Structures are given as C-alpha cells and as structure tokens.
C-alpha cells in the first residue's frame, strides 16, 4: 500500500501539473470555507486567551523600571567587568552617567521610584540615591570621586552589580522569587531567607495534593464507570444523571455544602458524636485544612474521571472476558490481563484531565483549605489584589504553573501518547 502511494507521488495531470498541486487547488474552496467557519472562534481565542497569556509571560519577565529611570547608567554599565578594574568598581564613565541620571531623575521626580525599586533588592540604598540626587547638580567631575565623597555607599559593589544585572529588558528576578530564590551580595542565586520561603512549599503541596486527588478519583471512578458500562440503558442513564448532577450545581453551592458537612459543628462531626464514635472534645478537623480541600476536590473532579473511563469501558466487548475465561484464565487474571489494559486509554485521559484541573484549582482550596490547604492558585490570586500584591510575582507564578502543566502534558504524551487517549 505505502509503496504504491510512493510511486504515485510523481504522477502528473494531463496538463503536466503535479497531481498533489492539483489536489490542493481542487480542495482550496472547501478549505477556505472551513477556515471561514472557524474564524470567529479563532479570533475570539486569540484575543481572549492567547494574547493574555503572551502578555502574562512578557509581563512576568519584563523589566522596565531600571532601564526607564536610569537610561544613561544602564548604557554605560554594560561594558563594566568587575575583574578588569583595580578595586572592581566601574570607571568614571559609569559614574558620570549615573550623575546625569540623578540630575534628570530629580527634575522628573522619578528618582524616588527608582530608589524604591533598587532599595527592595539592595536594602539601604534609598537614602543614598535620594540624598545624592539632591546634591548632584552642584557636583563637579570626576563624578566617581564626587559621589563616593558624598556617600561611601557609592563604592559598594552589590549596588553596581544589581544595576548591571537588572539593566536588560528582561529579568528573571520575579521567577526567582516565585521559586524562593534570591541573589546574594555577590550576585549568586541562593535560597531565599527561611522566612521568605513560601512558594516552593505551596507548589510542592499543590502537586502532591493533585496527585493524591487524581489517585483517589481513579479508585472511586473505576468501579462506578464499570457499573455504568454493564448496566442496562435505563439504569445507566439514571446513574449517569447522578454522576452529572454535580455539574449542574454551582461550584460555590457545592463547596458551601461541604462546609456544612465537614465543619467543626458540621453534619459529620455531629453524627459521629451522636452515635458515640468520638466525644465532644475530639471533633475531627475536616475543614480549613488539606483534608477539606482533598475531600471536596475529589468530589468535584470525580465526573471528569468517570466519563472518559465509562466511554472506553462501554466499547469493550464483553466477549473478551468470556474468551479469556474460556481459555482457562481465572476471572481476576482475565480482568487484569485483558480488561484493565483496554481501559488504560480512558484512565489516562481521566488522569490528565483531573490532574491538570486540580493543579490550577482555586475556589475550593480558597474556601475549604484554610492556611494549610491552599494551592498555588490562591497565592497567585493573593499577589494580584490587596496590600501585599505584587502583580509581577503573580505573573511569574502563573507562568511557572502554565509551563509546568505544558511540560507535564509533554511528558505524558511521551509516555502514553495523547493520540491514544479517549476523552469521551
């Protein structure tokens, strides 16, 4: 078959045109029509999905402040090489450029902002910049000596290292922060101070919780999907409605329902006390912790596991199992060797659906997770609003999450093959 088509690839039409070209031309109208049909959605997606993501990625890495506030210094410091000069300090040209920027900054009233940005990374430099800017106009060249004379801090290397590092249009500063890393005084990337380490822990928790939730969903969904697949149409439909019921209820309502159930004074605790299994002093903490997030998310994500499993199981011919047992295989072995492998495409689809949904989940961890049950999405949200907001860190966190998910998807594709998945 393949060899036949290979030899035909050199065929030409009567007019001598290549056959492939002729086919392309003949199908052009149909292809254009199809393109026209998907165009509205395509435009919509580009505007509302692709562009914001690109914007986010750029924002997370872009660096406007230093190049904007100190344009001359940024230009001059590019050629500075610490190991080339005697005491490591930049030469006069850089100091002159800085002087120029200080004068300009004072006039434009931007020096305060620049000082703020630099001070965040190199503490104690705010005063140095603002005060020197005030006197800058009266300074005489050489500015290196003049500035150092004004404030000895101008001879400190970390400051210059910072300026040089952050002079490009892009920075990895926010990404470093998002994975609890920072520059030390020598400009090396090191772990952040213990008190500042938050994100990596939550990233890790998000991944572990998502794995646990996905695993639980597989365990719970498999028998349900199997039951669905072997039930009569009437029964299967009723069961399917029960499975889909959560989809038809608002996410918020469902989450609130779990609050009622799981709370300290909730239905579960009260019932357990009433039947004497626990006493009043040892109420279970099922909510505002990882347990609460786990229980509610398993419930919410379960249908995403059941549906692809069910759709695959429904297509498995029951005679496979009969054939296996007729050949002398114990029913369990028959199931394990024949039925189970055939459900893997559905299970893999369910796993990737649930895992990717779980890893970016926001509302349930926010409402039920308390302090130790929150996910990375909650930190992203925290960084986008309120007094402690740092939009850039939010963007960096979101970008890492996105890239991480894409990476997982790629690994998954390598391992399982996405074309083999059956979503429904």
């Amino acid at each position: 078959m393949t060899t036949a088509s290979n030899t035909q690839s050199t065929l030409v039409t009567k007019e001598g045109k290549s056959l492939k070209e002729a086919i392309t031309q003949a199908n052009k109208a149909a292809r254009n029509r199809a393109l026209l049909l998907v165009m509205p959605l395509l435009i919509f997606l580009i505007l509302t999905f692709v562009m914001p993501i690109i914007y986010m990625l750029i924002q997370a890495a872009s660096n406007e402040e230093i190049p904007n506030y100190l344009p001359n210094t940024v230009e001059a410091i590019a050629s500075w090489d610490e190991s080339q000069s005697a005491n490591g300090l930049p030469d006069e040209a850089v100091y002159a450029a800085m002087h120029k920027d200080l004068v300009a900054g004072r006039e434009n009233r931007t020096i305060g902002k620049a000082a703020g940005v630099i001070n965040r990374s190199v503490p104690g430099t705010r005063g140095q910049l603002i005060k020197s800017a005030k006197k800058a106009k009266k300074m005489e060249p050489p500015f290196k000596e003049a500035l150092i004379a004004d404030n000895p801090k101008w001879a400190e290397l970390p400051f210059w290292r910072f300026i040089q590092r952050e002079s490009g249009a892009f920075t990895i500063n926010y990404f470093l922060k998002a994975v609890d890393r920072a520059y030390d005084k020598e400009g090396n990337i090191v772990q952040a101070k213990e008190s500042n380490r938050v994100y990596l822990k939550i990233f890790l928790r998000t991944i572990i919780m998502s794995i646990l939730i996905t695993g639980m969903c597989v365990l719970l969904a498999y028998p349900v999907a199997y039951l669905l697949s072997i039930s009569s149409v009437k029964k299967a439909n009723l069961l399917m409605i029960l499975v889909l019921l959560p989809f038809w209820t608002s996410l918020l309502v469902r989450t609130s329902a779990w609050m009622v159930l799981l709370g300290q004074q909730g239905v579960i605790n009260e019932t357990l006390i009433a039947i004497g299994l626990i006493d009043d002093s040892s109420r279970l903490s099922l909510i505002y912790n990882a347990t609460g997030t786990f229980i509610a998310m398993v419930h919410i994500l379960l249908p995403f596991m059941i549906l692809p499993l069910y759709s695959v199981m429904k297509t498995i011919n029951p005679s496979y199992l009969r054939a296996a047992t007729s050949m002398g295989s114990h029913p369990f072995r028959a199931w394990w060797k024949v039925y189970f492998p055939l459900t893997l495409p559905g299970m893999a689809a369910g796993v990737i659906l649930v895992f990717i949904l779980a890893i970016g989940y926001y509302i349930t961890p926010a409402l039920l997770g308390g302090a130790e049950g929150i996910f990375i999405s909650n930190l992203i949200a925290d960084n986008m609003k309120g007094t402690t907001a740092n939009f850039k860190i939010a963007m960096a966190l979101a970008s890492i999450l996105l890239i991480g998910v894409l990476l997982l998807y790629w690994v998954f594709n390598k391992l399982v093959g996405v074309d083999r998945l059956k979503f429904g």
Partner: protein
Amino acid sequence: MTTPTTVHGDKTDYLVRFENVQKSYDGDTLVVKNLNLNVAKGEFVTMLGPSGSGKTTCLMMLAGFEPATNGEIYLKDRPINDVPPHKRGIGMVFQNYALFPHMTVAENLGFPLETRKMAKSEVKEKVQRALDMVELSQFGGRRPAQLSGGQQQRVAVARALVFDPELVLMDEPLGALDKNLREQMQYEIKHLHEKLGLTVVYVTHDQTEALTMSNRIAVFDDGIIQQLASPEDLYEKPDNAFVAGFIGENNTLKGVVESVEGDNCTVDIDGTKVQALAVNIAGQGKPTTLSLRPERLYIRPEAGKCPNIVSGKVLEQIYLGDHIRIRFDLLGNDEFIVKVKNAPGSDHLTVGEMVDLGWETEDCRALDAS
C-alpha cells in the same frame, strides 16, 4: 458424504450430554424447553435455528457463561453445572472473534498457554505450530486490527485449539465474513476437524454452513430440538413442517388426510386427491402440510410415470444459469417453485400456460399441520 458418527450403547461414549436441560432468563418463558442432546467424541454437531430459538443459549450453558435453570450437563460423565467456565477446559470461538486488541497475534495465542503456566519455550513452540496450522506463520507479531477478517477468524480458531481442548465450541464464527471467504473457511474448519479429530459443537443460523460441515445437525426452534439428524436425512427426510421449511427450498401444500394406506396416505387439497408419504400426520380427517422439494418435480411427465399429476399455471420464469426456476400457481399456492435443470432438450414454457406437474409419492411428505 459424511457418515453420522452415532455411538451406540453406553452413555460413557459421549463427550457431552445434555439431560433435560431447561433455561429461563426471566422466570416467565423458557428459552430452552427440554434439551436432551448427546455429542460423541470426534463428532461435529451443529445447532441450527433462527435467532431466538435457544441455540446460542445452549452453547453458553455448555461453555459455562449461563447457568442451566434446570437439568444437568455432563462433560465426559462429569456434571459441570457447578464448574466455572475457566475450569471446563473448553475451547471457544466467538462471534466477533474476541481477539484481544492490545495483544499481538502471538500473544493472543500464548494467552491460554501462559494461563496454564507453561514454560516460555514451550509456549513459543506451540504458538508457532498453531500459526503454521492456520497458515499464518509470518503474522505472529501483528495486532489483530492489522489482519483481514479471514485472518482474524483463523487466529480465533487457532487460539481456541492451541491448548488442545477436548471440546471446541463455535458461536456463529463465520457470520462477519463475506460469502466467498465464508465458504472457504467452512472447508478449512471442516478439514481441521477431520485432521485433528476434534469434537465440535457449532452454532449457526446458516443452513448451508450446517449442511457443509456437520456430522449431525440439531435444528432448533422455539427452545426445542425439532430434529436431530445427519445433513442428508435432514434434507431428504424432514420430520416436520418447520424442518422441511427451514432446511433447503421447499413447497408446501395444505390439505386434509382422507385415508391412510400403510406408509402412504391420500390427501385432499380442495377436492384434488394427492398420494403422499405419511410421515407425521395426526390421522384420518386431520389437516396436514405436504412438503415437496422443487427439484423433485417433473414437468409434463409421461402418462403413468408419476402417481401424482396436477396441472398448474406458469406465473414466472427466472433464468439462473445452471437451472431455471419456474413459479407456478398450483392447488392454490402461487409460490410453488419448480427447479428445472438447464440441459439440452429441456422444455421451454411460456408464462400463463397451463402445465402438468408430476411427482413421486415418496417425494411428497405429509407432515404436521403447523
């Protein structure tokens, strides 16, 4: 011609015995009413019948996938009602082959052997032998989906035979194949049966298939075996109107028994008297169905050649190459078919003309009224 392998005497000669087996799914109706069937070792028995006649249910009870509601099934004199299917040691070929799609052909064939914890080298050897047997030696590494329907069919047969079961069940295995391939596979299965001395219980609704392959055929209808006989007997000597109608082409005439004379009887069909072989009649004055094979009728017989000569009107002629089918209106049946060999000297008839038809008394079987 096949000779029926009827084994007489001791019950122990039979590999399979159904004794008074009944089956009901819902408790209201019996799908299998009262089945008594013996299958001798080395025999090819076909359960033939229309869909819903209970034949597949019988096979499933034998395989162990359906429990018998009542009665007992014996395999080599061992009652097997309580033996789970995987311990029965019966090979089975399924309707849609049931080849495991995630395994290669060789893995499919190796499955029953690995289940039996056979050594790897032995498995390999047996698999290769089975592949050779069905002439698929080069296909061990392929997936079932990469094979044609006929090849899949052969793999399914090989898989049912690879662990040397005493009994092989086949559930309409050729149903999904096209006509030519089906005929070819019929011969292949028949030859395997003869070569390996297999005992086969085969289920089909295709009478040609049953006639081609079987030693004996059990014709099922309505949960009952209507007749159990060799292919020749089934065609030549049907016991009742259902079998006569189900096996081969058949003309029926409805009448009333006027008198019985020994093996023969006289039947009155709206005033016309006809001589027939009394096979299955209720008695004098009772309605009966006469069965006449289309190829056993003579057109314009010489006077005195046949005991029965009746005139009929030619309604239609269909040219079929080796023979011609002529549709008559005879004694009130306007679907009366006569097959005439397309031989030199055959009469040519014209539509609308009245023609005498004649037949022998023993070719006209008086059966139940149905």
